[in-house]
Structure formats: structure tokens, C-alpha cells
């Protein structure tokens, strides 16, 4: 037994010396294999357990294992050191003065590449086109935060807490502040509220941006998506103006001969409210699969700004009237490009990206 204990101590000592003798990561790994591998001196000690009675065998086995674990722990620490050293060496060996590149001729970023010009994402291209169309109609483009508090996303939009209409949006909440108080905006309408609160009237603006809903993605819906809304607040604005602007936009964006039609609907922040449909851009109204034969595509919602919304931002609804509208940018891109599954927008497959 003492004999075995001595052997363990010796193996430990030899092992330590062997590990300490390494000069770099490779030689260390080699040493580690020798000292802790299946054929190491310590592993060999196990063969001597056979001749012992069960009690002794248990104690001796534990002693061998303990020594092995000690050595392994020490090896881990050393290995970490050697790996860090190797990283340091690599950093040093690969150190580059990036200003040597900036001080030289400004060549093209991808000088090896045979790909030609790059491509802008279908969604941002669509967004650009939409912005341009509205800018040409005299609108500005407004933006705002994607994480919002309840006031901007719901309450100022005529949806007090417990309002059943909140159920129309499946909301993602953030673990910040009071539970349920900070959320990812479900629409870009909070930007409308901020714009009206700022109080510079009249307002003719569109607000594009990223929105979030707790919706399982499918071929037609994404949980992270893009929307564009519009807001007009001025004296003497009528429902007829809203219908006219939407119709003009439809013709400007989709082309002459394309129209919009409205039908009554409900949104808590507008009244009267409407859904708007546009001539199906695939079949130009003749009826096809995309529009289920109707000749019309449902695009978005709109309505006259509800007096309660004006009240919450301090605009006198007897002096000013206005309208708002909104629709999905991704959805529009999907319809126009006949994209079978919207989830492809998020893959960033270069074969997809380079088609646009």
C-alpha cells in the first residue's frame, strides 16, 4: 500500500515536471496526452489494483483518481495559459497597421470579387419608393423609437388599459420598468403621437419603420416587420381628402389605371375608419390567384383621426381635422414581387438578395 502511495506521488511529480517543461501549446498538448492519457503512468497504476482486497482497492482507487484530478486541474490551468499565449502570439504576428491601408490608394473594397454591383434589400427598396412617392406629394418622412411605452403605442391612441381593442395586436413586452409598461411598438403610430405632441401644425408626414408583433411567422406574416403610416393634420381636412390622397398614391406608386377603394372598418384611433384595397397589381384588376379573383388586394387601414387622439395630444378637433393611414411594406413587396413566403425576407440568402 505504501508502495502504491509512493508510486502515485512519483507519478504526480513526474507528470508535473513533464507539463511544466512544455515550450508552446503544441508541446504542452503532447505532454498532457503523455501525462494524463490512457497510457500515462497514472493510468497504469490502476492495473495494480487487481491484487488488493476490496476495501484497499476502493481507497487506492480513490487516491489514484484524486491524483489524476489534481494533475488534470493543473493541466487545464496551464493549457489556458498556453492558449492565451498562442492568441497573443497570433495577434502579434498578425498585427496590421490599418492606416497603411488608408494611406495608400483607395482601391475598391472588394477587389477580388467577381460579383459586380451589390443589391439593396427588397424591403428597403420598397420603402424608398414609398417615401419618394409621398415626398413628391408634399409629405415629410418621420421616424421614432422602436421600443415604446404604453402611452405612445396604446393609450394616446384611444386605447386605455383593459381596452378590448388592444387584443387586436399581440404585443411583445420588454422586461423594463413596471410589468407591461415598455413594449416593442406594434405599429408606427407612436411616431404620429410624437409628431402631434410636438405640435408643429400642419402635419403632412409618413412614418416608415420596423414593428413587432407576437405572431408566429407564416408565409404572410413576420413577427418583425415593416410598416409605413401617413398622417395629415390641417384645417379643413375631410374624408374625401383621405380617399383622394390614397387614390393618388395608388396611381403614383402602382401606375396609372390603378385605384383604391375604401370600405368601413374599425380602428380605435380613427373614426370613421376604413380598410383600403387597391387594384391587384398582378392582374390589373382582371382577377387572378393573388387577389382570389376579386381584382382587389387588401392593403391597409385608414381613417379620420379620432377626436380622443387629438385630445390626448392637445390639438383642438374643432379647429383641426386629419386622417391617418398605414400598411405593411413587406406585405406590399410580397404582393408586387409575387413572393410565395415572406420568411425568405429574413434569410439573407444572397441568391435572393441579388435578384433585386
Amino acid at each position, binding site marked *: 500500500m505504501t508502495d502504491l502511495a509512493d508510486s502515485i506521488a512519483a507519478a504526480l511529480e513526474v507528470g508535473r515536471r513533464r507539463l511544466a517543461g512544455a515550450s508552446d501549446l503544441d508541446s504542452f498538448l503532447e505532454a498532457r496526452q503523455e501525462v494524463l492519457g490512457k497510457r500515462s503512468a497514472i493510468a497504469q497504476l490502476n492495473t495494480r489494483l487487481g491484487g488488493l482486497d476490496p476495501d484497499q482497492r476502493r481507497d487506492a482507487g480513490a487516491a489514484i483518481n484524486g491524483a489524476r484530478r489534481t494533475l488534470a486541474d493543473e493541466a487545464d490551468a496551464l493549457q489556458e495559459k498556453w492558449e492565451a499565449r498562442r492568441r497573443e502570439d497570433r495577434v502579434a504576428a498578425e498585427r496590421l497597421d490599418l492606416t497603411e491601408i488608408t494611406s495608400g490608394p*483607395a482601391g475598391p473594397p472588394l477587389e477580388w470579387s467577381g460579383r459586380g454591383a451589390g443589391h439593396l434589400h427588397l424591403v428597403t427598396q420598397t420603402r424608398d419608393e414609398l417615401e419618394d412617392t409621398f415626398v413628391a406629394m408634399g409629405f415629410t418622412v418621420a421616424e421614432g423609437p422602436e421600443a415604446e411605452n404604453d402611452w405612445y403605442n396604446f393609450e394616446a391612441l384611444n386605447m386605455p388599459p383593459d381596452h378590448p381593442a388592444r387584443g387586436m395586436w399581440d404585443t411583445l413586452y420588454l422586461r*423594463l420598468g413596471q410589468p407591461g409598461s415598455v413594449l416593442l411598438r406594434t405599429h408606427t403610430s407612436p411616431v404620429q403621437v410624437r409628431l402631434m405632441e410636438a405640435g408643429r401644425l400642419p402635419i403632412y408626414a409618413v412614418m416608415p419603420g420596423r414593428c413587432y408583433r407576437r405572431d408566429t411567422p407564416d408565409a404572410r406574416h413576420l413577427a418583425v416587420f415593416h410598416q409605413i403610416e401617413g398622417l395629415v393634420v390641417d384645417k379643413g381636412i375631410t374624408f374625401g381628402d383621405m380617399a383622394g390622397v390614397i387614390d393618388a398614391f395608388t396611381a403614383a406608386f402602382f401606375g396609372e389605371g390603378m385605384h383604391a377603394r375604401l370600405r368601413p372598418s374599425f380602428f380605435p384611433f380613427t373614426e370613421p375608419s376604413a380598410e383600403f384595397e387597391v387594384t391587384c397589381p398582378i392582374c390589373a384588376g382582371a382577377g387572378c390567384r393573388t387577389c382570389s379573383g376579386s381584382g382587389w388586394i387588401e392593403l391597409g387601414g385608414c381613417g379620420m383621426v379620432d377626436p380622443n387622439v387629438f385630445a390626448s395630444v392637445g390639438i383642438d378637433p374643432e379647429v383641426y381635422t386629419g386622417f391617418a393611414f398605414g400598411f405593411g411594406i413587406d406585405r406590399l413587396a410580397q404582393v408586387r414581387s409575387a413572393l410565395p413566403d415572406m420568411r425568405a425576407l429574413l434569410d439573407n440568402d444572397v441568391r435572393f438578395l441579388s435578384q433585386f
Partner: protein
Amino acid sequence: MKAPLSWLRDYAPLDASVDQLTTVLSELGLVVDGVEEVGGGLADVVVARVLDIRPHPDADRIRLVDVDPGDGGPLQIVCGAWNFNVGDLVPLAPIGAVLPGDFKIAKRKMRGEVSNGMLCAARELELPEPPDATDGLLILAPDLAPPGTPIADALGIEADVVFDLDITPNRPDALCMAGIARDLAAALGETWSWPATSVAAPDPALGAAPVTVSAGDLCPRFTATVMEGLPTGPSPEWMARRLTLAGMRPINAVVDASNYVMLDLGQPNHAYDLAQLGGGGILVRRGVQGETLVTLDDVARALGPDDCVICDADGTAVGVGGIMGGASAEIGPDTQRVLLECAWFDPTAIARTGNRLGLTSEARTRFERGVDPGLAERAATRFFDLLRAIPGGENLRRGPLVDERDPSLPAGPELTLRTARVNEVLGVDLSDSDVAGYLEPLGFAVAGDRVTVPTWRLEVAREIDLIEEVARMYGYRRIARTVPAGSGRRTGGLTTRQRERRRIRAVLGGAGLDEAWTTTFLAPGDLDRAGLDPAAVEVENPLDRSESLLRTSLMPGLLKALRFNLDRQLDDLALFEIGRVFRLPAPGSVLPEEEELLGVAVLPPAGASLRSSVRPSADAAVVSAVRSWQWLASALRLDSPALVAGEVAGLHRGRSARAFAGRVELGAVGEVDPDVVSAYELSGRVGWVSLSLDALAGVARRPRLVGDISRYPASDVDLAFVVDEAVPAADVVAAVRSAGGDLVEDVTLFDVYRGERVGAGVRSLALRARFRALDRTLTDTELADLRQGLIDAAAGVGATLRS
């Protein structure tokens, strides 16, 4: 909401084609999701009597059936159903019949035996399954009709049309046939009227059930009627059929009548087995903390003081008011007497309780949106009438209606409606009488500018709500489209920042990079793998754990996108993205700090790519990142753009720099840390740029003033300096440039040499300085002086002229 046209016609003629009705419904805002024509395809199907059943000589699973199709028969049919006996009446589709789904019946031989038609199951005729049906044929009532009678006549089935309507939350009145018909009739200019009601007087002998309401704010109206002499068994075919078409399963006469009343009038109601109600009456109270109730769906629900609880007179809970009944007082086959509840609950309280319990029901949907508070009595009478008209219900008696009302029960408000305001908001030109003409058919009472709202339209509470009603009835289609006149001059346009964002995209796109769009969400561990601080804003209720954090960097998303492409054997990748990142809120704020970033990730191919014979150099990834930065700095006219070597989280420590414009830090440029590259299971090296668009918005740009351009020849001076590796090339260039003063046009590093000839720890930088004066050709003497000046200046940053 499914509305069979035949049912709607109980209220008005609705004399228009199905297409017209569909259009009118949509234009009223009752969106038609689908139109289904039903009950067709039964024209040739007749009642037949089974005369004999014989085994098929050559098959085990089918039998030969002789039937009487009306001419006495026997007509042989081969049939695979086993649920009928000799003497039963069954539906027969004879040869030539066309069943629903355009299924033609032809004479055919089955294992050598002729089949002269088909005996049908309910499903094959699109008829409702009887409640106790076994698998197989539809077995008709024993004395339904003589053989040969068309099945449609025998069952009283008419061809029907079912509109599947999407009712918006502001139209609770349209969650029933009466309400839908009211809108349609008004739009079509037809008269709408209630169906006749019974004159059977309450029977005082039945007595009034005791009702106490101690939670009048939650339940402002509770009515109870005791009824006795209920019909047992199934409801009649016509009622079962209507319920089926409306999407409900017939169960038995009493339950069906209850559902029918809700669908017909919009009044949710509940029939309790009176024998099961302790004290024979009802107590409506608030829930008690710790109280539970097992609802009809067999789930134990924890109730509290915000909830309205329906109890028996002894105080034992029997239902969650307005949402769902309890299992205990459910009516069963032995029920002799029922207590019928027709009540009105506070919509907000219903929504609150429903949300908390996560419990939805037809009743909840209606009550939380708003039921007509004046409907209870009519609904109770309708329930009574329906059951009394059913065979077995002739002796039904009812007691008096007990009607408990709280002062908070709403009535239809009186509103002011200014015709001028209608015209202002809509852009139309209506008269007072036009306006009245649109509102009155819907039940609004108009007197001058005062409008009284009917109890079934309580969500109409403001002038603007009335204006919407006028617009709906006038027709959105008819409102003339105009262009806003507006109050003043306005110009549209993009902001500087928006234009600059587009410029960035154009420059990078032009340089060959593809624009990506990655999700805002990260999985736990994504940041750690990218060598970044793992602190991030958490999503409280993510759809999936892999989407539970908001990104603090674009790097994880873009690295994943690279990986997605590599997995598909696509290499030669260069992606960029512009998007928001989110950091934990600053002290004193609850909203996250948002920043708009540009991210660039370039992964050159391992060798020459498919389309190019040029092999990327070993440092191609980092070079492409630096050049992308250079292109952007130039395109955005940044003043004094600079890269300053420094450690950046996630980047290779020897190949990373912070990017500045003057003193403002814009972001980082370099190569992704090789450990991060392998953690994202990528191979090769990844060039990286991250710039803040927020920071960019605040930095100075070179002025747009044009500089003078000399017409004299240039003189180039080439100099090679030996420079310590620790001194950035940019410092040497800057020193040389400033020494040249106004006369230096450009300084370029054209060669870098490292090796034995210069020694270790230093490299040789070969610079070309181009001199030119605005007003003269520089002389050799001047150039010699300038050259010496450059050498002296370079020495100032530790660069010695290479000999």
C-alpha cells in the same frame, strides 16, 4: 360570424342577388370573408325504405340492400354501411343524381353485383349529423315521409346561402341575425321588423324565482324566468339546420334554443336546472378571494373580488357572470324546470375577468363588446316561444320575469349632431333630412340636431360616431375624392440624415455589397459568442427563447447570415445592414437606449470565387473593411476621418481600430476576432465595420465651397522612411502633409517593405508627395527645400530616411 340568408330573412325581405348582398355587406363594413351556398345537390335524393338486406355473395364488407325508392321497388343497392335495419327510412341518391361536391351517381357493378344508386350518410349530403348518430347512413325519422319524397322536402331544407362575416369590435350589434339584417335592410331601403312574439301570458302559479344582486355595478341587469314542461329530445330539423349553418352543433332542444336566441337576437343567456339551484333562486355577487369554480369546460377557475359570480340563492357559485356557466347546475335529460338567465354585464368587468382567467366564450365576446341592455325580456320570450313550438313543448309554461336593474344600467344617450360638422368631416353636402334619413332606419331617433341612440348601439357615444354611421349609410364609395386644400404652403422632403442613410446604402451597394435585413432578436449566448458584453434588454414574452433578447450589436445577426449562406455553398460574401440596436436604459429612464448602426461583414472566398479569377489576398477581409470605411468617409465628406488602432470587443486585437471624424468616435473597423469566427462556425476571416448613424449625424462635413485648382505642372517627390512598427503610417503621412503646407496636393503611401534589409521591429514606408503651386511652376531649389522639410517633419514622428 356565420349568417344564413334564410335566417336573416326572418327580419326583412332582403330581395337582392347574393352578389349584391355581398357587396352591400362589405360596403357596410360587415366584411364578407366567404359566401357558401348550401343545400344544393339534394334535388335528386329521395327517401327510400329498406326492404331487405342480403349478404353479398362475393364480399364480406358490403351487402346487397333492396329498397323501395317510391315505386314499391325492390331496387338493389350495394352498400357498405352497417347501421340500419329492414324498415328504416334512408336517403337514396338514384342513378343520375349529383351530390354536393359535383359527385355524379352512376350505375355500377361492385364485385359482380349491380348497384342502382347510393344510400347516403349525412356527411355526403352536407347535412348535420344527428346528435346520437352512429357511423354509417343517415337514418331518417320512422314516419318522416313516404318513400320517393325528395329529401329536401322531407327535411324542410331549402337551398341557402351562408355569409361568413368578419365583425369588427365596434359592431357588437352585428353579432346576431337581427343586427345584420337591420343594417342590410337599411342599406337596401327595406323595412325591418321583429318576428311576431307569443301572447302566452306568464303563469303566476309558477312563481317568481328569488333574485338578489349585490354586485349591481358588475351586473346592472339580471332577469330570471322559471319555465316548466320542457320538451325533451332533439330540436326540430329547421332549428338544428340553422344552428349548424351558423357554426354551432345541435345538442338538445333546450341548449339549442338558448344558442339560437343568442345568435338570433344577440342576447347571451343561460338555462340552469332549477332543482340544482340551492334555495331555488339566484344571488349575483362579487367573488371572494380564494373561491374557485369548475366551469363547463371542466377547468377549476380561481375567482376574486373583481369578478361577477352567479350563485344559487344559498350563495354557492354556479357560473362566472357573462362568461361561462359552472358544471354544477347544468341542465340534463332529467331537468324538469329551468331558470333562464338573460342579463347584462359591465363590458370592462367582463374583459378584465376574461383576460385574467384566459377564458373566451361566445357570451364573453358579446358582453365585453356590448349587448343591448334592453333586450332581456324579448330574449326570454323568444326562448319560450321557440321551445313551445317544438313537439313536446306544447305544455311549456313560464313564470313572471324577475327583472333586477341597477341605476348604472346604460340607456341610449341623446347626442348632438351638427349637419355642418358631418359635411366638414366627410367632405359632402348633406341636408338635415338627408342625415336623418340615413340614421333613422338604423334605429336612431332624430329630432333636429338631437339624436337618441338605440340601446343596441351603445358604442355610438359621440358626434363623430354618428358621423361614421352617416358615412357608412351614405356609402364610402360615393364620397368624392379630393386633394387637401390645406392651410398653407408645404414642401415634402427627406431630412439630411435620411438622405445620408440612402447615400451609405448606395455607396456600399455600388461597392458590391448586398444589403441584408436581420432580426432584432438574439438568442441567449449570441452576444457572448461574439465576444460582446452579454447585458441586453430582455423580452418579457418572447415567442421563442431564441428570440428573447434585443440586439446590442448587428454582429451576431450578420455573422448568422454569413453562416446561412456558407451552409448553401455560397461564398464571396459581403453584407451590410442598417438597423437599430438597443441597450439597457440610462439611469432615470425606462426606455432602452436605441442607436441606429451600420454593420458591414465581408467574408472573402477561400480561393478564387466562381466568377472571378482573382484570389483574395490573405488580408482581403480586413482590407475590404478599411476600404469600405474609406469610401464612406469620402462619400459622406467627413472632415478629418481617421482610424486609431485600439481594442474593440469582438474584433481581432491586432487588426482593429476605432473610426473617428475629427474627435467624434463613429464606430470600429477591423477584422472579426478569429475565436468569434469559429464560435459562429464560419471559416475564413471576416472584415467588419460598425458605424453609428446617430454619431454621424452630429459630425462636421467638409464645406461645399470649391477649392482653387492649379493649372501648373506637378512635381512628385518620393521618399522612403524607416518607421517603428508602433508608429502608424497615418502619423507619418500627416506629418509630411502638414510640412508641405499649401503646396502639397497629395501624399500617398505607395509601398511598404518589411524584412532583413530594414531590420526587425520596423518597416519601410515609401511615400509619394505631389507638390503644386497655384501661381507658378515650382523650382528645383524650392523642391529641394520642401523635400528637406518633409524629412525633418518625418523625423519628428520618429521616421528616418531610408538610406
